């Protein structure tokens, strides 16, 4: 948790903030997101059934496309495409995508670095395969952020609003009808968080 530049948790009763801060930090650690979040501020007003979270995430990595880590060529057999990968960590996701697209019967794995794929028109498929997006860290981050926010928020607060705009994330939850001013407040929190003058940590 040392990597967070700013970490603020505010509650109506000041003494109730430190236990909640611990919940937030535990969940961020559990989801392995400590390195991805730069600043975070959480405000809870139990009497209004309101939970607000604003976070600034660190710069997001670019998309990973197949040709970045694999060599794609025609195989020796008819209709065969050979995919030779150089980074193994993307393999499970790549295999899943290929299975979904071509079916399990069309794929063989002679060794851990090679996938041989049998299709009707290899030339066309090679073109589309080269630009296949295997991993999109931005999308993963968005779902992780939403997951984190839902875990952190009190369980009964099931009316939710969230947005990820560039590196700025806000999340508002309540058990009552969502109000525009709550979302506006969260945006203000975000601006304060991004500004240099910190509004002080409650913990």
């Amino acid at each position, binding site marked *: 948790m040392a990597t967070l530049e700013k970490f603020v948790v505010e509650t109506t009763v000041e003494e109730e903030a430190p*236990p909640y801060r611990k919940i937030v930090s535990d969940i961020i650690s559990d989801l392995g997101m400590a390195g991805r979040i730069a600043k975070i501020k959480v405000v809870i007003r139990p009497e209004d*059934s309101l939970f607000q979270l604003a976070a600034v995430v660190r710069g997001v990595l670019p998309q990973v496309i197949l040709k970045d880590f694999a060599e794609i060529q025609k195989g020796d057999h008819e209709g065969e495409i050979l995919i030779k990968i150089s980074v193994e960590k993307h393999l499970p996701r790549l295999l899943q995508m290929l299975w979904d697209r071509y079916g399990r019967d069309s794929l063989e794995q002679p060794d851990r670095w090679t996938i041989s794929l049998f299709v009707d028109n290899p030339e066309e498929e090679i073109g589309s395969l080269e630009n296949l997006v295997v991993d999109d860290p931005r999308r993963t981050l968005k779902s992780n952020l939403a997951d984190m926010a839902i875990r952190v928020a*009190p369980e009964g607060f099931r009316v939710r609003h969230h947005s990820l705009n560039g590196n700025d994330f806000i999340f508002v939850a309540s*058990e009552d009808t969502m109000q525009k001013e709550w979302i506006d407040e969260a945006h203000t929190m975000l601006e304060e968080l991004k500004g240099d003058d910190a509004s002080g940590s409650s913990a």
Partner: protein
Amino acid sequence: MPVAAVLEPYVYEGGVHKHGLIIELLEDLGGYLVQSTPAATEINLVMLIPRKDVPLMEELAKKILGKLTRAPLTGTEIAVVSPTLAYHHLPHSACDVAEHLRRDGANTNMLGLARGMGRRVALSQDYERRLINEHDIAVYSFGNFSDCIINKKPKLFSGVDVPIVATGSPALKTEDVKGADVYVGGIGRVSHRLRNEGEMDSLDVLNKTVGEVVDKMREEISRDPLAVLPARVMKEIKEQVPEINDVLSPAPITLQLDGMRVKLPFGQFHEKMEQLELDENISLSDVANIMPSKMKDYILIKIRRRSETGFTV
């Protein structure tokens, strides 16, 4: 005569090797084995030992390199009630609370309400309330905000007749939490295992508090004693209904302060229970109410008081 005055609750922890000696001695002394939990080469025996014979047992335990500790919550079945079974409440802190209560000999059941979360929307169902009422005590595991605990969550207590112990993070007074018999602070919502010093202290306070509630209930029972000791009935069931030995549950017969839960199907076994012979011409149905439990299709036995039966077995 009060149960606690005659029999003392103890837990033996030691190796499986020669633990049969402990059971033999217990039988010779007229004590009761409440639960036996083997785990690989270790075994836990929860027992009720006649008070005057405790030193004998301690001596034997020491000889076979085991440990005998007092377990004041033995013979109680406690419901640990969590607002829901979602990851917001489980496994920490509700399971930690249940585990700590078990260390003192209690049998605990985790009970997650279907719609107990939130403030305005929190509610409990009739079935859940009936299930909670089958226990000796209900321990409610609440969260971190005093406003919720004071103003919103007590509605989950309605319809619950058994003593209620509420836990939460803020340090509140019991009288602030309407409907709770006792409130214990320092145990709120957490996302990590409770093991820091302060947290363990709070769990110890909780056990102590629950122990005091149990003592009060035992005292109340002693004023108008049960017609037969639950432990005695348990022994008779083990001897007269051999099918209980085939039940794989850790506690096939779960003792309660004024009865027990027998984990056999009600339809098939209730007649056998009713006819269970306790003494000449006295069967269990003469001294107890035998009814279907809300938990699965188990049998719930509640023993009547002496004032009702006119005799004790």
